[in-house]
């Protein structure tokens, strides 16, 4: 096309701009689609398990996760309904693709299951049962019970002692000790 005359140049530029504007939304839509996370394999769910100091699992496909929810323990599998739960001190079990079962003791935190079989688990600390000292748990449990009994009811000291009692009791139960 002859774009030497000013009018022709203006018209060509207008067409170019219109064409670019028509293409841009489609291009950005395609680009946006590219940013979507890949769906986990059929029958598996994607797990993100993070501590503040360390990432334990980043977008790993697993069969299921058993979460120690504060209002009850539940297992998350592929296509689970979205759910957000606070976790209580207890055992978190990951059932891997190859059938292996991995257990962590968590002190608290949250588990968020999203649409599309992705679960985010965040907690301040997660340890293997082998790393917990049973003697220390029993000792701390007894000390915490004594503190809770002697503290003023409803005070912060009493609450802190109760937290210690609860956490040590959960650790003892996880280890299979009789905690009373």
């Amino acid at each position, binding site marked *: 096309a002859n774009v030497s005359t000013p009018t022709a140049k203006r018209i060509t530029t207008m067409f170019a701009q219109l064409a670019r504007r028509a293409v841009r939304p489609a291009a950005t839509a395609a680009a946006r689609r590219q940013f979507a996370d890949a769906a986990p394999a059929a029958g598996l769910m994607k797990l993100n398990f993070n501590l503040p100091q360390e990432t334990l699992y980043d977008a790993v496909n697993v069969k299921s996760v058993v979460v120690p929810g504060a209002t009850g323990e539940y297992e998350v599998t592929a296509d689970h309904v979205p759910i957000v739960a606070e976790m209580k001190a207890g055992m978190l079990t990951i059932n891997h693709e190859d059938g292996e079962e991995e257990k962590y003791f968590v002190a608290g935190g949250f588990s968020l299951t999203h649409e599309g079989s992705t679960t985010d688990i965040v907690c301040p*600390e997660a340890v293997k049962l082998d790393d917990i000292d049973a003697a220390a748990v029993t000792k701390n449990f007894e000390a915490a019970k004594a503190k809770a009994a002697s503290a003023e009811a409803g*005070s912060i000291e009493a*609450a802190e002692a109760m937290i210690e009692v609860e956490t040590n009791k959960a650790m003892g139960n996880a280890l299979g000790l009789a905690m009373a």
Partner: protein
Amino acid sequence: MTTPTTFWRLAGVSYVQYVTKATSCLRAALKEPAKSKAMTQETFSYNKSVWSNGEQGAKKLTDSLAAVGK
């Protein structure tokens, strides 16, 4: 605000304080070497500096928050 139902909330302890305390309990009951590694997460310190005329004074290491206001 809904009525608090957990014992810690009723005593005036926030969720973050609650979960931090539970985590400390967990770390205190670990075996070596996991314990030393976990305890590094617990270390913290405070710096205190006094502001005057819109200028921040020199920062000094403080032992505890309770001593800061004095």
